[in-house]
C-alpha cells in the first residue's frame, strides 16, 4: 500500500492536506533534494512536485524516471504555470517518435 505526497512551497501545497495527501514543504534546492530522495525511497507511489521545485530536482527526478514507481508529476503552483508539464510530454513524444507530432500546433 502506497501513499501520495506533495512537494513544493507551502503556499501552493497547503490545500492538499485536506484531501488526504501528505504534504512536504520546501523552499530551496538544498532542502528539496534530500527530501525528494527520502520520499522516492520510502513508501510513496505518487509524488506531485510543484513546477518551481521540480526545476531544482531535475537530476533526482531523472534518476527515478526508469522505475515503475514512484510516479513523479509536476503540477503548477500558486506562482502560475511554467509549461514544464507539457514540455515533459513533448520530450516523451520526441523520444518515442523521433520528432514532435502531437504538440506542434
Amino acid at each position, binding site marked *: *500500500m*502506497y*501513499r*501520495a505526497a506533495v512537494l513544493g512551497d507551502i*503556499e*501552493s501545497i*497547503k*490545500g*492538499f*492536506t*485536506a*484531501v*488526504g*495527501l501528505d504534504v512536504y514543504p520546501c523552499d530551496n534546492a538544498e532542502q528539496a533534494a534530500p527530501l525528494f530522495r527520502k520520499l522516492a525511497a520510502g513508501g510513496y*507511489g*505518487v509524488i*506531485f512536485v510543484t513546477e518551481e521545485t521540480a526545476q531544482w530536482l531535475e537530476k533526482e527526478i531523472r534518476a527515478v*524516471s*526508469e522505475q*515503475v*514507481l514512484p*510516479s513523479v*508529476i509536476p*503540477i*503548477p*503552483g*500558486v506562482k*502560475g*504555470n511554467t509549461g514544464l*508539464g*507539457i514540455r*515533459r*510530454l513533448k520530450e*516523451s*513524444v520526441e*523520444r*518515442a*517518435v*523521433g520528432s514532435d507530432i*502531437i*504538440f506542434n500546433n
Partner: protein
Amino acid sequence: MAIMNVNPTRMELSRLKKRLTTAIRGHKLLKDKRDELMRQFLDLIRENKTLREQVEKDLQAANSHFVLASAVMQKQQMDAALLSPKQEVYIEASARNVMSVDVPVFRTKTRTADQADIFSYGFAFTSFELDEAVEQLAQLLPQLLRLAEVEKSTQLLAAEIEKTRRRVNALEHVMIPRLQETIRYITMKLEENDRSSRTRLMKVKDMMLEKSHDFH
C-alpha cells in the same frame, strides 16, 4: 559494408546462414513490437495531453481560490483549519504488462468511505473561498491520480520504444547486411576454390597423359 572476419569454410557458411535467419526473424518480431508499442503510446499520449491540460486549468482555479482565501483569512486560522485532515488517500499499485513493459495501475482507497467528507474544519470561522478551494481539489484528485498513472506509462513506453527502435535499426542496417555480405563472400570464395582445384586437376591430367603417351 565491411564483411566479418571469418574463415571461408563450409562450416562457417552454414553457421552464418543460421544466424541470418535468426536475425531476420528477430527483426520482424521487434518491428511488430515497435509498431504495437507506438500505437499504444499514441493513444496514451493523447489522453495524457487532454488530461494534463484539464488538470492544470482546474488546479490553477483551485489555487486562485486558495490565494483569495489566504487574503481574507489570517494565516494562523487557515493553518489551523487545515491542520488535522479527515481524509487519507492510499494507493494500491499493481503493474500492467504492455508488450513486456510494466506500467503502473493505481487503485485508490480513502480512509473515510464518503469521498465528499473532506472538510476538516467547522464552517464558522473560515472563508467560503477556502471551502471552494478544498472542494475543487477533492474533485480534482481522481484526475490527478489518473494523470500520475498515464504520465508514468507514457514515459516508460517512450523509453522502451526508443530502445526497440535502436535494435530494429541495428538489425536492419548493420547486422543483416553484414551477414548477407559475408555469406556472399564465403560462397564466392568456395566456388573460386572449387574452380581452381578443378583446373589444377585438368592440368595434372594433361601432364600425365602427355608423359605416358609421349603425346605432342
